[in-house]
């Protein structure tokens, strides 16, 4: 059974059919790419997968469970985490706290325990710190743990967003243009990091990206969206050589 199974997904904004008859199936452990021209509907697909938009049609199954139209928070609890095209960090909090917020649902203690600082508070906080630092170290961010998130350079902010998403212990990680605004070297580092987290955290990854080096370098499979519809789907090398895709997206 696939980890993610999407059938006939569609959404309209007023008269605009942004996504239509979208089908997608991702196996456990895959690294999957979603590409397509600007305004094709890629981010919109992410928004539907994470419950930010309610799809007008279609079904989304995660691990066999129907999550269509569920609340964003519940979808996260079911195992989907994401990053955003326009970075959305908790800017006024430290790097460490950003990750600890991601850990929120994995470590429990009640509000009263926190207010009255019962022993459980100290124990849990300590564990959370440890775990958070562990995740941060994957990105080399552990040394910046107590900097305000908004003071990080742009590229580091993107990585912190990934770290925060990973902290929620997802089965499926959605990355929206993780390499935007990075130079080729930084992009290469990012590729390594993505490969590493797949291995270490055992997550399945679906990513949107316009940087073809990254896409062809790490994605095993691709879906190409064009005007809200699937243009091509399949193994990366096949898709990238598809003349339709070249015409609509890659150019040359």
């Amino acid at each position, binding site marked *: 059974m696939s980890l993610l199974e999407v059938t006939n997904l569609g959404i309209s904004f007023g008269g605009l059919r942004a996504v239509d008859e979208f089908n997608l199936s991702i196996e456990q452990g895959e690294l999957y790419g979603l590409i397509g021209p600007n305004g094709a509907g890629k*981010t919109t697909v992410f*928004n539907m997968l994470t419950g*930010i938009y309610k799809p007008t049609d279609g079904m989304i199954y995660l691990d066999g469970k129907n999550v269509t139209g569920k609340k964003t928070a519940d979808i996260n609890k079911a195992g989907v985490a994401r990053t*955003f095209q326009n970075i959305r960090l908790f800017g006024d909090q430290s790097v460490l706290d950003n990750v600890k917020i991601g850990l929120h649902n994995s470590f429990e203690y009640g509000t009263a325990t926190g207010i009255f600082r019962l022993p459980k508070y100290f124990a849990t906080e300590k564990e959370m710190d440890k775990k958070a630092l562990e995740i941060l170290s994957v990105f080399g961010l552990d040394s910046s743990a107590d900097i305000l998130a908004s003071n990080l350079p742009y590229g580091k902010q993107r990585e912190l967003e990934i770290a925060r998403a990973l902290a929620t212990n997802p089965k499926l990680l959605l990355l929206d243009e993780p390499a935007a605004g990075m130079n080729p070297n930084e992009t290469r580092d990012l590729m390594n990091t993505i490969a590493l987290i797949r291995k270490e955290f055992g997550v399945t990854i679906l990513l949107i990206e316009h940087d073809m080096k990254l896409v062809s370098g790490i994605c095993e499979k691709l879906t190409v969206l064009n005007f809200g519809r699937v243009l091509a789907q399949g193994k990366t090398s096949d898709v990238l050589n598809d003349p339709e895709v070249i015409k609509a997206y890659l150019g040359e």
Partner: protein
Amino acid sequence: MGFLTYLINGLSLGSVYAIIALGYTMVYGIAKMLNFAHGDVIMIGAYVVFMCMANSGMPAVLSIVISIVCCTALGMIIEKIAYKPLRKATNLAVLITAIGVSYFLQNMALMLFGSNPVSFTSVIKWQGISLAGGALKITGNAIITIITCVVIMIVLMWFVKNTKPGQAMRAVSEDKEAAILMGINVNATISLTFAIGSGLAAIAGALLCSSYPSLTPYTGSMPGIKAFTAAVFGGIGSIPGALIGGLLLGIIEILAKAYISSQLADAIVFAVLIIVLLVKPTGILGKQIKEKV
């Protein structure tokens, strides 16, 4: 007949709220600040009209013109001294300063004009019309206020939509820094907004006190709060919304007094406001911008 009478009373009260709300919404819409001192500028405007008319015997129209000039200047001075330095600070800081300015204007008026109420002579001499053989009276004040309100609303809407400064205002309200990149003088635009808002306050003051003729240094504060409520009711930032919000607020207030309880009328007005906002979270005409993710 009773109902119609109440409805008309409500309209005339509402039109006063509406005209104040227009000033609120104008400033809020562009500068994104709640100018809590707006009600007090209205009070000053009313005093100026009063001084001109009662003390110097000037005609009403001239008095209002003088008052508009004074209030416009006052608005721009306030903006320059108290709000402009806080342009880059949080909106809340400006809100608090506005409260300080409001206290200042009230106490300044207390010094200048004394605490005793003065009775305001209506700027409108027209007695109004009688319908249904005198059973239904609409006062001249009410008619003129409503007409003024609608005219101002139309002019403002036209101004914002079709003139260069109006265009600049819209850009500033969206994103101040990006507006600079368009070549828009943000400071001048905000000053202009204040000037217009304060000029409107002068007209509002004259009309407010014509309908409710007792003027004290604190005359502006309560209508100010009510008008702010009205502006939110209609969808803050929306010019026609301010008109509709004001009128509705007036009508609800009067009908609640008339048919439910005059003791609880304020509570009822606010309860209706809450219900409306729960159904329509951005007010009646407010546009709901869904954040693009």
